[in-house]
């Protein structure tokens, strides 16, 4: 009976998770194509260093170490999770113990140590968020759901760890009650007797172990299915997102090939103005108004963001009180993508809801505050590129709507008229050589 319940629970959880992953993939595919499959070796190296190795986290060592504890515990605990799956489906008890013997004790002890470190890390993160009120974790774009989301994840992690120690601790206490010799797991052989030592009844201890076991797996399934609705999705997205990183120099902005064709026509007196443009030459619009005008990588970036705010805390515009926050740009992009994706699934892929990323989510004032300094891009621990979204939105404003701050109109006119952003005649360009 228990095996059946476990089987159904497992299937349902993975099924629902797969259902949501499919939605995420669909949403990302709303974006425009961009080639990010070149330079494979460099891509694998970037992923190993930045996602697996967390290289960029270590620019801030203390949170990096705390984060590493949580991350390592999460990765290693998967071994125990596999055992839970085997035990749950076959009805065995600690299936790996028989084959592995002493190594099993070492392995579980190792997991337990990491779990304790993760526990400390989680508490520290909760304190940092709610008591120390770290500025970047308490900005206005985090008010409401994002803040709850962050705390909920941390609380779920605490419950998860508590379940592990209830399970292992009760098991240890029961064994010690029977034979004076337990498994010898490094932490729970002490924690078990400490919490459950007063219980002299084997049945209750077994029940407690079961509660821990079921609690653990239920939490894992809950957590897994919570991820697609949460910023915490970065634990998966960090890997593809770093693999598909921009590898060109950060200062290199994308070239708009569609513009090149038109400009060449303008510059070339022999061009045939009536020649049919290549089918792919003319985009639906210049620049981006909505998420469907961004590339799939921009959209993947949005799903990879865990709202840590390192981008925003490094942003010169944000630091001087301007409206721009690169983190908000990413959150807006994600929220708009989810909204539009849901709408299109309901009303057909050609349907439009009359809203857009620019206008309904992001304002012109935010976009014009950007100095394109790349600090946000540099800071992001999972290689998100908020700047390319900002520039694509600017391109739409300027090229489609002619909404340019008036001083910039002057600058652009000067470039077009006299080849310099200021009003100087080209004939004066060499004057410096003859001036004192």
């Amino acid at each position, binding site marked *: 009976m228990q095996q059946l319940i476990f089987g159904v629970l497992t299937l349902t959880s993975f099924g629902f998770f797969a259902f949501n992953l499919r939605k995420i993939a669909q949403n990302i595919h709303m974006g425009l194509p961009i080639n990010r499959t070149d330079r494979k070796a460099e891509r694998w190296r970037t992923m190993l260093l930045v996602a697996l190795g967390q290289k960029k986290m270590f620019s801030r060592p203390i949170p990096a170490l705390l984060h590493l504890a949580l991350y390592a515990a999460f990765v290693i605990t998967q071994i125990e999770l596999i055992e839970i799956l085997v035990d749950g489906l076959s009805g065995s008890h600690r299936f790996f113990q028989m084959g592995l013997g002493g190594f099993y004790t070492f392995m579980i002890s190792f997991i337990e140590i990491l779990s304790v470190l993760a526990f400390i890390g989680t508490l520290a993160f909760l304190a940092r968020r709610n008591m120390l009120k770290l500025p970047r974790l308490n900005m206005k774009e985090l008010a409401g759901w994002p803040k709850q989301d962050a705390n909920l994840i941390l609380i779920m992690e605490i419950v998860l760890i508590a379940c592990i120690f209830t399970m292992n601790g009760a098991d240890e206490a029961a064994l010690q009650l029977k034979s004076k010799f337990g498994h010898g797991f490094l932490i729970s052989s002490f924690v078990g007797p400490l919490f459950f030592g007063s219980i002299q009844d084997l049945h209750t201890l077994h029940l407690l172990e079961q509660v821990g076991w079921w609690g653990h797996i239920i939490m894992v399934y809950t957590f897994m299915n919570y991820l697609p609705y949460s910023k915490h999705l970065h634990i998966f997205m960090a890997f593809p997102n770093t693999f598909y990183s921009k590898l060109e120099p950060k200062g290199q902005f994308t070239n708009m090939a569609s513009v090149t064709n038109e*400009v060449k026509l303008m510059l070339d007196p022999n061009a045939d103005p009536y020649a049919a443009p290549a089918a792919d030459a003319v985009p639906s619009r210049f620049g981006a108004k909505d998420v469907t005008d961004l590339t799939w990588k921009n959209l993947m970036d949005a799903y990879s963001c865990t709202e840590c705010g390192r981008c925003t805390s490094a942003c010169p*515009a944000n630091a*001087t009180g301007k409206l721009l926050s690169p983190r908000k740009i990413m959150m807006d992009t994600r929220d708009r993508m989810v909204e539009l994706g849901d709408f299109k699934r309901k009303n057909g892929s050609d349907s439009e809801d009359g809203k857009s990323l620019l206008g309904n989510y992001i304002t012109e004032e935010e976009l014009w505050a950007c100095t394109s300094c790349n600090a946000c891009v540099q800071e992001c621990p999972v290689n998100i590129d908020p700047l390319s979204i900002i520039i694509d939105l600017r391109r739409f404003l300027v090229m489609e709507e002619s909404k340019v701050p008036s001083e910039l109109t002057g600058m652009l006119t000067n470039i077009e008229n006299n080849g310099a952003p200021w009003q*100087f005649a080209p004939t004066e360009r060499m004057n410096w050589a003859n001036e004192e």
Partner: protein
Amino acid sequence: MSIQVRTMADMMASGESPDILFWVGCAGSFDDRAKKITKALVKILNHCKVNFAVLGTEESCTGDPAKRAGNEFTFQMQALMNIELLNGYEVKKIVTACPHCFNTLKNEYPELGGNYEVIHHTQLIQDLINTGKLALADNGTFKGKKITFHDPCYLGRANDVYEAPRDLIEKLDAALVEMKRCKTNGLCCGAGGAQMFKEAEKGNKEINVERTEDAIETSANIIATGCPFCNTMMTDGVKHFEKEEDVKVMDIAELIANAADL
């Protein structure tokens, strides 16, 4: 006194071709402060007998501020005209004292048909010193001085050039002091992304003031830069704190020209 400098057209007419083109840039051509940087670099190039030329009146904006402002049309008009000119002169190598021109020429021209080896002037000067073509005089100009280097975003983060300018400062008889935010963490001066040409959006502080505070905190006597726009912003920042007497803002080329008695 006029300064000795030849144009590409000039050279071509006499059947010569330079080893390197000096791309002066709009700031270097028209901005009074930046013109001094241009002249300092030309003095260094002449002193080292570098076979170089400028485009002179044929030079035109690279299109950088237009591209950052979102106007790809204006950018590509400029880029394609410049590329036609550069390719016509068969230019292979370019040096520039402006990180914005540097970034655009190096990274954004290739896709439009302009392929050149592009270096920043700090890299060229470093090379001139390392190959023994330029020697710094022991004139004590910078003795006991503290110099801090402000990383231009389009040189540093955008193109990963952090060491050439620092290497040059270390060659001076001065102490290099770093700001709390430097290299990859360097704070923008506030001019990039076409901000140079507009008022800042509403906020509670100017970015150049924030950055100048970083520099003043180091108690440096000189703020060194490698970008004419950073130079303007930092100079204004120093004025904001009324520190013009104590803190000078200078380009690396000027520091080297001084140290080499040019």
